[in-house]
C-alpha cells in the first residue's frame, strides 16, 4: 500500500514529522517498506535565471551561460555561476532549474564536480526533466515561465515535494488499504486527530435508465448489495494536476478523470468502484453466476472464459464485467464517454477470491474485495465518487439504483481488561484500553466492544487484546523471566530416536563423511529408479521438473550431489545425509534414513601406499559402525536381497529376521549412468527407526568374566567353491564347539585365476582363525586336535570345503 504524506494529511490533522509517522506505522504493525522523500533526492535543485548565454568559444553546439543562482533560497544572496550547457534552448533570460556542484543527479547517476569543458570552466548544471527523473523529457533544459520564483526549490514550485510511504499491510487489515484507515491508526496512537468525514448525498435529478438486479442465487452470499447511478453529460478529459500527481507518486498511471477517480477512492478509502460507459451498456445490469463458457475481453486486453458459477455482471448482450475483479474492455470508459454509470458494490470476499484465483487475475479490486472492504461505506462511497465526478467532469447525476442491502456485521465481544494485562504482560489501565478501542472505531456498551464495519478481522476477545497491545506499543514491552517448569536438574528432553539421529550424524562425520542436506523432492525418473515415483508421492504443483516426487530413499539425492561435485572436478568423496524418506503420501508415511555414499578412492593421493577404490567392504564397515553406535545387535543376519538399485552380485542387507536394518553395496551401473555419476560408487542406507530400542535402560554392565587359562588360536585354510560365503563357513566352524570356541575370524580370501590354477577351476580358499578359550583347565594337544577335527568336519559338511593342503 502506497500513499503520500499530503494524502495522509487529508485525513489526519498532525504536527508529527515524517520520521515520527514512519516509526509509528512500523510499530503499529503497518510495516514501512520504503519511504521516498523528494526533498532528500531533489532538494538541491532550485530555480535560477540565465543572465546571459553566449556561444562557447571552442564548440559549436555548446553555450556558455552566466547563471544567477540562490543557494540559500529566494530570500538569500545571489551567486553568479558559469555553466557550460549543450541544450538547444539555453538562452539569455531563461528561467530554469540549477544543480550546484556536489549535487547527485538522479537521471545520470553522477555527482556534479567542478569541470572544464573545452577549455572553459563549468560549475554546476542546468537540468532537464529527465535528469530529475520526473519525466522522460530530454529535448532541452527545463524552461519555466518568466515569473517563476528564483531561489525556490523546484520540487516546491512544481508541487512534487510529497514524500511517498510504502507500507506492508498484513492480510487481516483491509482497512489499512485505505489512507483513512492508516490515519485512524495513527490518531489512535496519539499522532494527531482524525478529520471528520462527511459525505452528503447528491440528490438525483432523474431516474437511472440502467436498472440493476442481483440474481437470487447470489443475494445471500456472493453479492449482498449492488448500487450505481448514471451521470450524464460528463467530459472525460485528463484529471487535474493534483490528482495526477498523487497517482503518479504512488506508481499509478493517470488515464482519464473518470478512471483516476475510481483509483483515487480505491486508495483513499479502500472503496473500489467501476465505471461503465453507459452508452455501451445494453439494457440493465444483472449480477449472476456464469453458465460456463461465456467469454469477456477484460480491461487488461486479455480474454477470459468463465467457469460455471463464477460471478459476472451482464447486460442484455452478455457479460460486461468480472464482478469485483475486473471490468470489461467493451463497456469501459474512454475519452469519448459522455454518460457514465458508476458501480459501487459489496462483493463477498470468498467468491471474489475464488473467481480471481481461477482466472489468475491479480487486480487491485480483487486484492481489496477478497480481504474485505467496508460494507457500510458502499453507498457513501458512491455518493463521494458522484461528487468528485460532478466536480471534475461536470454532468448531472441520476438517482441511485440498487439491489440488495448492506450486510449486517454488528457483533460484540467482551473486553476483559485484566486478561489483557495478563496476556500481554504490560500494565495498561482500563481507561486507556477503552479509549484505544473507541479511537479505532469500536463502540463500547458496558464491557462489550462492537467492532466497526471496516474491521472484518475482529472476531473474538483475543482480537481486542491485540488492538489494545498494538496501539499501546509492543516496543514498550519488557521481558519478564519465565520460571522453570520444575526446580532442580532437568531430565533429558530428547527422545531416544532424537538422540539416535544425532549419534548417527556424528558417527558418520567421524568416519570421514561430509553431511549434505538435499531436497526432499526429486525428479520422477530418479524416484522410480529407487522404488518410488508412485502417484501418491507426486506433488500436484512442483516448482520444477527436477522436484516432482517425494524421495523414496536418500541415495538418489546423494548421487546427484556426487555428480555435481564430479562436474566440479572432485573425484573422491564420501557424502551422507540423515533425514526423512517417503514411502507414501499420507502424513506419517515417512521414515528416518541415514545414507552414505563413497565415490572414487578411499583416500587422497599420498606417498605411503597405493590408492584403493572404495568397495563394498568400506560401505559395509561404515554401515556396521553406525548400526553399532545406535545399539544394533552385533549379529545381524546378512542376506543378498538388496534392492534393484544395487549391483546384484555386490550388495546385501543386514536384517534381524524380517526387520531390515540396512542395505549396502555397489550401486548398479545403470543407476549411476542415468544419474550421470562416474562410477563405481558404493553406498548404504540405514533404516534408523528399524533398529530395536533397548527395553530397559539400566546402567549396570554385566560382570566381566576373565579366564586365567591361556587361550589358543588355530588357523585353518579351506578350499571351497568360489560362491561359498564366508559367513556360512565361519558359522559352521563356530558350531563345532559352542562352549569352547570363543570367536571365529575370517582373515583371508584367496580367489581368482591364480587360486583356480592352484586349487582347481571354480575354487577359492578361505582362511579362518579360531580362538579357543578353556574355562576349567588348560587344553591338551589331544583336546585341541579333537576340536580341530570337528571344525574340519562341520565346515566340510556345511560348505563342501576341504582343508587346504
Amino acid at each position, binding site marked *: 500500500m502506497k500513499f503520500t504524506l499530503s494524502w495522509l494529511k487529508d485525513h489526519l490533522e498532525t504536527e508529527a514529522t515524517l520520521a515520527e509517522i514512519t516509526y509509528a506505522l512500523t*510499530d503499529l504493525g503497518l510495516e514501512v517498506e520504503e519511504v521516498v522523500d523528494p526533498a532528500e533526492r531533489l532538494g538541491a535543485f532550485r530555480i535560477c535565471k540565465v543572465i546571459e548565454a553566449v556561444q562557447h568559444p571552442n564548440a559549436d553546439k555548446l553555450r556558455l551561460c552566466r547563471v544567477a543562482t540562490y543557494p540559500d533560497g529566494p530570500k538569500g544572496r545571489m551567486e553568479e555561476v558559469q555553466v557550460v550547457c549543450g541544450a538547444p534552448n539555453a538562452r539569455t533570460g531563461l528561467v530554469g532549474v540549477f544543480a550546484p556542484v556536489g549535487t547527485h543527479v538522479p537521471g545520470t547517476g553522477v555527482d556534479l564536480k567542478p569541470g572544464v569543458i573545452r577549455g572553459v570552466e563549468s560549475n554546476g548544471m542546468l537540468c532537464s526533466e529527465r535528469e530529475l527523473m520526473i519525466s522522460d523529457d530530454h529535448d532541452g533544459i527545463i524552461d519555466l515561465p518568466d515569473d517563476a520564483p528564483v531561489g525556490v526549490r523546484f520540487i516546491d514550485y512544481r508541487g512534487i515535494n510529497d514524500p511517498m510511504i510504502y507500507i506492508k499491510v498484513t492480510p487481516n487489515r483491509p482497512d489499512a488499504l485505505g489512507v483513512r484507515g492508516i490515519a485512524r491508526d495513527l490518531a489512535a496512537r496519539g499522532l494527531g486527530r482524525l478529520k471528520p468525514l462527511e459525505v452528503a448525498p447528491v440528490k438525483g435529478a432523474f431516474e437511472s435508465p440502467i436498472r440493476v438486479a442481483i440474481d437470487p442465487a447470489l443475494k445471500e452470499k456472493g453479492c449482498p448489495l449492488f448500487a450505481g447511478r448514471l451521470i450524464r453529460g460528463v467530459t472525460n478529459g485528463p484529471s487535474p494536476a493534483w490528482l495526477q500527481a498523487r497517482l503518479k507518486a504512488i506508481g499509478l498511471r493517470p488515464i482519464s478523470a473518470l478512471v483516476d477517480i475510481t483509483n483515487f477512492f480505491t486508495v483513499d478509502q479502500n472503496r473500489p468502484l467501476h465505471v461503465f460507459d453507459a452508452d455501451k451498456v445494453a439494457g440493465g445490469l444483472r449480477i449472476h453466476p456464469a453458465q460456463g463458457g461465456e467469454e469477456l475481453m477484460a480491461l487488461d486486453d486479455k480474454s477470459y472464459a468463465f467457469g460455471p458459477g463464477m460471478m459476472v455482471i451482464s447486460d442484455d448482450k452478455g457479460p460486461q464485467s468480472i464482478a469485483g475483479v475486473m471490468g470489461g474492455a467493451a463497456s469501459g470508459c474512454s475519452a469519448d464517454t459522455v454518460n457514465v454509470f458508476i458501480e459501487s458494490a459489496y462483493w463477498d470476499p470468498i467468491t471474489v477470491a475464488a473467481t480471481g484465483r481461477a482466472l489468475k487475475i491479480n487486480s487491485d479490486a480483487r486484492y481489496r474485495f477478497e480481504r474485505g472492504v467496508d460494507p457500510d461505506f458502499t453507498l457513501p462511497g458512491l455518493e463521494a465518487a458522484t461528487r468528485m465526478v460532478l466536480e471534475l467532469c461536470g454532468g448531472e447525476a441520476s438517482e441511485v439504483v440498487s439491489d440488495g442491502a448492506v450486510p449486517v456485521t454488528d457483533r460484540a465481544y467482551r473486553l476483559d481488561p485484566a486478561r489483557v494485562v495478563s496476556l500481554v504482560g504490560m500494565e495498561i489501565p482500563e481507561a486507556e484500553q477503552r479509549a484505544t478501542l473507541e479511537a479505532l472505531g469500536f463502540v463500547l456498551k458496558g464491557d462489550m466492544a462492537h467492532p466497526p464495519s471496516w474491521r472484518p478481522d475482529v472476531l473474538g476477545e483475543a482480537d481486542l487484546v491485540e488492538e489494545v497491545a498494538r496501539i499501546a506499543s509492543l516496543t514498550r514491552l*519488557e521481558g519478564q523471566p519465565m520460571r522453570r517448569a520444575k526446580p532442580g536438574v532437568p531430565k533429558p528432553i*530428547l527422545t531416544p530416536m532424537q538422540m539416535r539421529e544425532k549419534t548417527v*550424524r*556424528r558417527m558418520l562425520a567421524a568416519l570421514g563423511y561430509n553431511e549434505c542436506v538435499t531436497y526432499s523432492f526429486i525428479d520422477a525418473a530418479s524416484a522410480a529408479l529407487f522404488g518410488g515415483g508412485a502417484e501418491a508421492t507426486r506433488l500436484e504443483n512442483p516448482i520444477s521438473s527436477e522436484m516432482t516426487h517425494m524421495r523414496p530413499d536418500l541415495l538418489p539425492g546423494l548421487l546427484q550431489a556426487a555428480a555435481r561435485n564430479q562436474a566440479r572436478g572432485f573425484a573422491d568423496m564420501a557424502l551422507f545425509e540423515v533425514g526423512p524418506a517417503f514411502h507414501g503420501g499420507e502424513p506419517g508415511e515417512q521414515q528416518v534414513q541415514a545414507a552414505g555414499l563413497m565415490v572414487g578412492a578411499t583416500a587422497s593421493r599420498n606417498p605411503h601406499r597405493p590408492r584403493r577404490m572404495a568397495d563394498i567392504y568400506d560401505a559395509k564397515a561404515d554401515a556396521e559402525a553406525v548400526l553399532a553406535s545406535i545399539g544394533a545387535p552385533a549379529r545381524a543376519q546378512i542376506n543378498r536381497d538388496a534392492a534393484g538399485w544395487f549391483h546384484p552380485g555386490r550388495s546385501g542387507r543386514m536384517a534381524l529376521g524380517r526387520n531390515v536394518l540396512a542395505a549396502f553395496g555397489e550401486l548398479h551401473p545403470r543407476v549411476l549412468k542415468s544419474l550421470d555419476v562416474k562410477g563405481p560408487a558404493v553406498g548404504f542406507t540405514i533404516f534408523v527407526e528399524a533398529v530395536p530400542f533397548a527395553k530397559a535402560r539400566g546402567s549396570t554392565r554385566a560382570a566381566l568374566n576373565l579366564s586365567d587359562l591361556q587361550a589358543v588360536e588355530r588357523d585353518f585354510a579351506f578350499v571351497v567353491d568360489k560362491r561359498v560365503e564366508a559367513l556360512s563357513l565361519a558359522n559352521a566352524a563356530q558350531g563345532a564347539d559352542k562352549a569352547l570356541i570363543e570367536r571365529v575370524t575370517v582373515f583371508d580370501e584367496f580367489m581368482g585365476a591364480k587360486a583356480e590354477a592352484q586349487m582347481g577351476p571354480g575354487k577359492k580358499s578361505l582362511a579362518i582363525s579360531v580362538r579357543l578359550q578353556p574355562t576349567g583347565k588348560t587344553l591338551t594337544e589331544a583336546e585341541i586336535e579333537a576340536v580341530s577335527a570337528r571344525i574340519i568336519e562341520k565346515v566340510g559338511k556345511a560348505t563342501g570345503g576341504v582343508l587346504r593342503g
Partner: protein
Amino acid sequence: MDDLRQKYLALVSGAGDEATLEDVRLAALGKKGEISLKMRELGRMDPEMRQATGAALNRLKDEIDLALRAKKAALGDAALDARLKDEWLDVTLPGRPRAQGTIHPVSQVGEEVTAIFADMGFAVAEGPQIESDWYNFDALNIAPEHPARQEHDTFFMAREAGDDRPPHVLRTHTSPVQIRAMQAQGAPIRVIAPGRVYRMDMDQTHAPMFHQLEGLAIDRDISMANLKWVLEEFCRAFFEVEGVELRFRASHFPFTEPSAEVDIRCSWDKGQLKIGEGDGWMEILGSGMVHPKVLEAAGVDPDAWQGFAFGMGIDRLAMLKYGIPDLRAFFDSDLRWLRHYGFAALDMPTVSGGLSR
C-alpha cells in the same frame, strides 16, 4: 700375573668388533683360555700359595670380565648409533591421509538451539512433513479462503482420481507440530519443533525447502513479556554476546493474537554482522500469544491456559551467526562449501561447554 692383566686389557680395548672381542674372551676366560688354564694349576699348589694365587686370579678374572662387558656394551652402542644414523626418514612427508567428515550447519545450529531451549525446559517435538490441510491450516485458524492460505505458496500432494479428500500439503511451517504436541500432551507444555518446511519459492534468497524452529509454551499465566524474556535469553546464548536488544513490532499471524515480529539490534560493519550493537534492526522471527482458536483445535481450554509460540528459520540463524551468504547453497552439497562451513564431528554444542569453538 700383571703381564696377563696388561695383555688382555690391551686386547679388550683394542677389539674393533664383537667377533674379535669374543675371541679375546675365549683366549682369556674360555674353557681353554689362558686364565682358565691358570686356575686349573691352582690344584697343584700348596694351600698358602693356592690361597694367594687363587684370590689374585679371581680378581683378574673379574676385572677382565668387567672390561669385556663394558667393551661389548660400548661396541653395541656404537653399532646402534651407526645404524640409526643410517635410518633416515623424511619427516616432512605428509602423514597418512584420514578423511575429515563434517556436520552440516543446519544440523549444527539445530543442536545449538536445542541445547539452549532444553536448558529452559523445552522438549523437542516432531511431526510429519506431509501434512493434512487441517493441521497445516484449519487448526491454526487459517480458514480455507483466507488470503494467508494463498500467500503460503503451498505445495499440494497429488490426489488419485476418486479420492475426494482435500489434498495433503507439504507443511508450510512447523506450526502444525504445536497442534500435534498439544493433542498428545495437553497443557502445561513447553516444546520446540525443528524441521524441514516447504514453500513454492525459488529465487536469490529463497529455496523451496528450508528449516524452521517452532517454539511453544503454554501454562496458566505465561505472558508476552515472558516470550520476550525467553527470546532475549535465547538470542544472547545463541549469538554468544553479552547483551542483546530485541524490539517487538505488532504484526499479524492467524495463529497468534497479539502477534509480533521481532527485530534484533545489530550493525553491519564491512559486510560483517554484529549482533547487540549499532543502529540497525533486523527482523529475525515471528511470534505471539497462541490464538484461543488454536488452543481449542488442539483440545486445550483457552479459558484456563495461555501461552506463546514463535517460529524462526534455522538456516537463517546459521547464516547470521556464521556469516554464510547464500541460502540455496545449503542444499547444493558442494564439497567446498560443506568443508568450509561444516563442523567437526566432535564440535558438540552444549550449554556447559559453549555452543561454538
